[in-house]
């Protein structure tokens, strides 16, 4: 365990790229949040009960700041894809070659990225000719953005649910992720569920500016990022040490035919 990690092991496991993808996660979430809070000023979100005129007045206060916030959000949210990719890569270590849950999680992460990006473009449309358009149209585009942005939560639910199930199905002696992380992901999947029901509510905690549909899912998303980043970095380091220890234990032998070694490397070679 205390052996220094060999450079060839780093190359074989592609650990630098893996770590880079992990750090894409915090860059995404903090850049997006800063843009969303300080430039767009969408926290707290404009109430769904707001009239069209009030909404146009709010957007008209500092339109360029909102535009800038949206452009930054568009770039930062694309980083969800590398982050989802490294999660799926570590899941493949659990699942082996038939990594259905990892694939499902990766594709859901990609879809989630699209579901993040499109509402930003719709907000940009609403602001593009803010003064020329009928306030009703601006309201409709804003409704559409929020309903998409928060209402399409199902991909995120599937992404973390697959991760959770995969973690719970890890039956090796020393698991890649701790088991409580599996339960945590399934719980998070359930906690995001109320966000999908915002079309029914214009007031209260289940509307898009409410506690259960916006603040709680958002807080949980932040906490999920922090926990996931720590556990991913730990899993990558652990794999490095594991493979280094195996290498040292088999000096002179051809590693490619070593069975536990293969088990570790096959899923990576596939991806």
């Amino acid at each position, binding site marked *: 365990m205390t052996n220094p990690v060999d450079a060839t092991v780093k190359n074989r496991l592609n650990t630098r790229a893996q770590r880079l993808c992990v750090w894409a996660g915090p860059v995404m979430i903090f850049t997006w949040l800063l843009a969303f809070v300080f430039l767009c000023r969408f926290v707290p979100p404009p109430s769904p009960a707001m009239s069209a005129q009030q909404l146009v007045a709010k957007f008209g206060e500092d339109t360029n700041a909102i535009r800038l916030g949206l452009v930054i959000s568009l770039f930062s949210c694309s980083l969800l894809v590398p982050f989802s990719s490294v999660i799926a890569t570590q899941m493949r270590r659990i699942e082996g070659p038939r990594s259905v849950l990892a694939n499902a999680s990766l594709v859901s992460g990609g879809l989630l990225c699209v579901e993040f990006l499109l509402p930003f473009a719709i907000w940009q449309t609403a602001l593009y000719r803010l003064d020329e358009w009928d306030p009703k149209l601006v309201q409709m585009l804003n409704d559409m953005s929020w309903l998409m942005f928060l209402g399409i939560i199902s991909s995120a639910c599937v992404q973390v649910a697959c991760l959770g199930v995969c973690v719970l199905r890890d039956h090796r002696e020393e698991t890649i992720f701790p*088991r409580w992380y599996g339960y945590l992901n399934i719980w998070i999947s359930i906690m995001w569920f109320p966000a999908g*029901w915002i079309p*029914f509510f214009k007031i*209260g*905690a289940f509307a898009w500016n409410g506690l259960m549909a916006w603040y709680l899912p958002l807080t949980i998303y932040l906490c999920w990022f922090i926990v996931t980043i720590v556990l991913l970095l730990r899993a990558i380091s652990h794999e490095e040490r594991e493979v280094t220890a195996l290498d040292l234990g088999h000096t002179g032998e051809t590693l490619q035919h070593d069975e536990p070694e293969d088990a570790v490397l096959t899923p990576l070679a596939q991806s």
Partner: protein
Amino acid sequence: MSTVETSRGVESARPAMPDPARPRIPGEAGIWVFIGGETVAFTFLFVIWLYSHSQHPDLYSVGQQQLAVGFGAVDTLLLLASSLFVVIGVRAVRAGLRPLGPIAFAGGLACGLGFAISKVIEWGGHIAAGQVVQTNEFWVYYYALTGMHFFHLLIGMGVLGWCFLQARKPALSAQRFAYLEGGACFWHMVDFLWIVLFPLIYLVR
């Protein structure tokens, strides 16, 4: 899954009877992360209900009079019975009483199904009477709270179905039994949350 099945049928693989002298967590530690999280989330809901109640006492007193307390009471009895079934089921599996385990879990599942049917009829009545989510804040939270609980009930029924399948196996490894116990704990949580929701929604004026 097959890795933990190796000890199937071996007497020593049977889950040990609990030793009262040693502190023990039912299920595995991870499931309590889950149950703790759920309890916190529902606590938010209870507080939201009470806050909204204090803001709109008139809406809530009119709304609560329109609720069917009978449905709520029957639902409560069904869930209490289901929890009893689940307790019997877990004990039967632990003691190796073959036919009783699956029967008890099926009983619990049937009670859960009864609750679901009763809730759908109750909602249907309100919707037919024009009492929908958009009516006012009372109905917003009535549907939101009962709906959130219903969603957990559906998940719980899936979990009980899994427990039923496990209970039918000739023997369970200690690890498998811990999963079964964790599933039972989840169901008790669904029951417990309703035990709080029922008086809160139907009775507290």
